[in-house]
């Protein structure tokens, strides 16, 4: 702590002499310890990984819509090895699905949301000079970067990437004899995830310490913006659950390399009788989902936090039920640890245990409903400004509802039996987790771009991007419900098997799959608008003003030009909560948190 203050003092002196702080290219852009730069590094890495994962999804979507037809697109990207004659290989299909899921969940949504915005906003919105430990923060990013590279490398090896689905259930993931991707590809997957987890842990610990210790004067916990509450609870979830995934991965590694039997029992594979006895594949599933479910909220809570801030700012109204929002974030965070079993209703887990998880899972619907109604009431009688960020935040609320309600079906074990592992599930989690989180991320990028780069993104292109994205993404995932209700299992290379027993259903699936793929291509092309806008605006966008959205929070009191230590003078002092928008009696429709209460003014 003293080191940080010392550092910033040194900087001030330099600043006073109009002499710029000397930073080399390497210390500024590569091994930076400045939270703003690290946030940007996370963002760009995650966006790149997201593009790769989106491309992978296009490749397998083409196979699903036009099974067995030769495609130039496939042969261009996969070559003769994985798509001989432009037709995707069965094994590579599984590899694409696996890596698509892994990258999207961990690298885009965890790294891109929590990594980017926790780094950018925690110090800025709390009035801190930087993270508690700038060095650990840097380490956290570089572990993330290295793990990204390893994950990408696994796509290019001879035996192909991991092919056991993103959940990598053993024994499939433990036995190279069962599928070739479980050889080197799986090893690289495990190494990559191990580094990812280490990075994520270091980052999360840093976020927690910063939130607890480095709040500026007057910034009590109940005056923190909801973004910070969301990041804070997300970090706690990460600290408590990621180590469990690591333990699952380490045990799997030992089963693969050291001949232990944690997950393996009584197996004959590839003509070889294995000696392993007494292990349980269900143990892995329990360990995996103990992370896997909180992971959903690690992805979702930051998106909800960002949208709370954006909706409040652009509706020019305080967020409705601030304390209820905090309460629901905490409730969701707590409940997310005791619901993992709902992924395992039909795995052979004791049915009584299943009923306990039904109960806890459906409880989560209550705080989620509270959040939705609070968003709706925030919009009610607002004075809404539709910036691109606001549109994406509204899109998020819509997808959170649409994907959330189908969760009620899946959480009900009796109903889950018939739709478990079908496209109904794929539709559910892509809408509630994928779309919501991506919308939250886009909203965050549009809203805080001026803070990140000191320039504005183009609004009109932002509108175009939003409309293509919401139509495209709903067009992809909404019809999937119907594919799933028709009984289509997920992770099928094609549905030709239906031809042998139900031709009508086969036709229906094929029809819907074509529609889905066409929308996927549209949505993917729509992202080019964003990429163009993003990179163009970094260099050529109009220079931003200090507080472009007329927002209350502290980050908008910092100068547009980034300075090390965030505020050139003394740290700001906070006098009120962050949601005094359109307060009666005030001149403007916003009051910065640094403005002291007027005489006789009530806090809220």
């Amino acid at each position, binding site marked *: 702590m003293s080191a940080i203050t010392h550092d910033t003092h040194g900087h001030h002196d330099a600043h006073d002499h109009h002499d710029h702080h000397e930073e080399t290219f390497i210390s500024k852009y590569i091994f930076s310890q400045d939270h703003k730069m690290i946030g940007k590094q996370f963002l760009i890495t995650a966006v790149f990984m997201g593009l790769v994962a989106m491309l992978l999804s296009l490749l397998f979507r083409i196979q699903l819509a036009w099974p067995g037809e030769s495609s130039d697109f496939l042969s261009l990207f996969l070559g003769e090895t994985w798509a001989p004659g432009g037709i995707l290989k069965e094994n590579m299909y599984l590899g694409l699905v696996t890596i698509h899921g892994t990258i999207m969940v961990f690298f885009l949504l965890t790294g891109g949301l929590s990594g980017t915005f926790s780094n950018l906003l925690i110090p800025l919105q709390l009035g801190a000079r930087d993270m508690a430990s700038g060095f650990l923060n840097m380490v956290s990013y570089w572990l993330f970067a290295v793990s990204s590279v390893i994950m990408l490398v696994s796509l290019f090896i001879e035996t192909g990437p991991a092919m056991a689905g993103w959940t990598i259930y053993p024994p499939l993931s433990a036995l190279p004899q069962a599928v070739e991707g479980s050889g080197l590809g799986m090893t690289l997957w495990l190494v990559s995830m191990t580094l990812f987890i280490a990075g994520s842990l270091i980052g999360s610990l840093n976020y927690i310490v910063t939130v607890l210790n480095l709040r500026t004067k007057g910034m009590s916990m109940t005056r923190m913006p909801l973004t910070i509450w969301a990041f804070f609870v997300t970090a706690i979830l990460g600290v408590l659950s990621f180590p469990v995934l690591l333990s699952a991965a380490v045990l799997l590694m030992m089963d693969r390399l050291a001949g232990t039997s944690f997950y393996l029992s009584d197996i004959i594979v590839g003509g070889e009788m294995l000696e392993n006895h*007494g292990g349980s*594949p269900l143990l892995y599933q329990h360990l995996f989902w103990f992370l896997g479910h909180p992971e959903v909220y690690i992805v979702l809570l930051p998106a909800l936090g960002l949208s709370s801030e954006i909706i409040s700012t652009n509706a020019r109204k305080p967020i409705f039920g601030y304390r209820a929002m905090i309460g629901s974030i905490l409730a969701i965070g707590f409940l997310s640890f005791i619901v993992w079993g709902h992924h395992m209703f039909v795995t052979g887990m004791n049915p009584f245990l299943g009923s306990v998880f039904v109960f806890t899972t459906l409880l989560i619907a209550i705080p989620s409903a509270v959040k939705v109604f609070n*968003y709706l009431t925030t919009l009610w009688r607002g004075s809404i400004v539709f910036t691109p960020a606001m549109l994406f935040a509204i899109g998020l609320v819509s997808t959170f509802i649409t994907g959330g309600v189908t969760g009620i079906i899946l959480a009900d074990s*009796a109903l889950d039996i018939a739709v478990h592992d079908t496209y109904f599930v794929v539709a559910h989690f892509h809408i509630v987790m994928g779309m919501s989180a991506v919308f939250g991320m886009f909203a965050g990028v549009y809203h805080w771009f001026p803070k990140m780069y000191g320039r504005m993104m183009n609004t009109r292109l932002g509108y175009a991007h939003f409309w293509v994205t919401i139509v495209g993404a709903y067009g992809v995932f909404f019809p999937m419900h119907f594919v799933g209700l028709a009984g289509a299992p997920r992770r099928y290379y094609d549905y030709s098997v239906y031809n042998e027993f139900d031709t009508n259903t086969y036709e229906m699936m094929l029809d819907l799959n074509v529609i889905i793929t066409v929308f996927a291509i549209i949505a993917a092309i729509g992202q080019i608008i964003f990429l163009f806008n993003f990179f163009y605006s970094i260099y050529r966008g109009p220079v931003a003003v200090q507080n472009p959205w007329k927002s209350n929070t502290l980050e908008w009191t910092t100068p547009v030009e980034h300075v090390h230590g965030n505020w050139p003078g003394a740290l700001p002092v906070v006098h009120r909560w962050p949601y005094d928008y359109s307060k009666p009696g005030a001149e403007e429709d916003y009051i910065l948190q640094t403005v002291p209460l007027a005489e006789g003014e009530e806090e*809220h």
Partner: protein
Amino acid sequence: MSFKLITIIVIVLGVLAVSQLVRLYELSSKLRNRREEDVTNRDNKLNANLLLAFMIFFYAGFIYLMTEYGWTGRGDAASIHGETTDWLLNLNFIIIIAVFFLTNTLLFGFAWKYVRKPGVKAYFYPHDNKLELIWTVVPAIVLAVIIILGLKTWNGITGDSAKEAIRIELFSKQFDWTARYSGEDNVLGKYDYKLTTAENELALLTEATLDSAIRYMEFGKADSTVLGIKLLENKLNNPKNIFIPEDRIKMETDLDRKTRLLRLLYQMKARHNAKLDASAYDDILQKDTLHLLKGKEYEISFRAKDVIHSAYFPHLRSQINTVPGQVTRLKVTPTISTKEMRVRKNNPNFNYVLMCNKICGSAHYKMKMIVVIDSPQQYNAWLKSKTTFKDDYLKPVAVATDSTVVASAVVDSTKLGM
């Protein structure tokens, strides 16, 4: 190649065109003194209207999909518990579709209605305890109903089956299913994975299968594609043989493994109670097609040989994973015969099916078994055509056509003698 070149040129030109347009737009904004963060009333109104239009388009798409594909594309449930879960599913769908329409309408409706209007200030409304209590308690009550109904159904489905339920077993491996009927005694014979041989794929446990597994471990396959312990020892101990180190290590590991497995087999043999053989010998094995009797309750247990699979009967609304090293189970009572379902579905070629629904390797998508739900006459006719495990196993293969059968016939001849 020229196609790719043209694509690249079009993309480059496209990007250039867009950047020029953006430049133009920025210059005009500058001229009109409009900043990027100032959203004009026209833009604001346009987006508000688009949100409403999107909502209508979205609902229309939903209703179209519903009318076109329905909400159970699998058709009517063909089992007793399936009828209950379909009823519950419909109830839940009504609730969630109502919530979906209500909240989405409020969302897009508010967004449209409360777009910024000149001179209208937002209403400062930070909280209201009564409202918040309402939308905590109302969802809680609805969820309580859903939970109670759901758990009641779940307990019924997963509870014990009746004593007289017909016991069968489904054995899964990459990438097919094998059914085992318990035969006349309605008891499934015991098994142990170490007893697996080419003639005893399901690893059933009897005196004879034990002996043959031991022999197999000791002597390997007759055609030397799999080496037994004896041959491995001979090879490794013969000073004339020179191996590259990798091969030697591989053979030594193989030998060690087989020696340990053999020891376990001998232990098993020492403890074996031959009285239990009968329950295995009357079992009936069946590949490709699973025959079930309409109106009978079945207690099905599941095994997996290699990796996790999932037994998914979409029309019976049944599903359970099959797990290596662990037995899973479910109970089901089919209610509609295949013939009746063909009429209902208006498709003379329709069949019930058992699919694999847990990723299990490259041909996962092809791993299925046709399920036929018979009337008693059809079922008995099919049953008459079947032979028991005893018939299949203890009778040496008379006509050998391909090499693997020749090899196994050699092992077979030793089985009876021991």
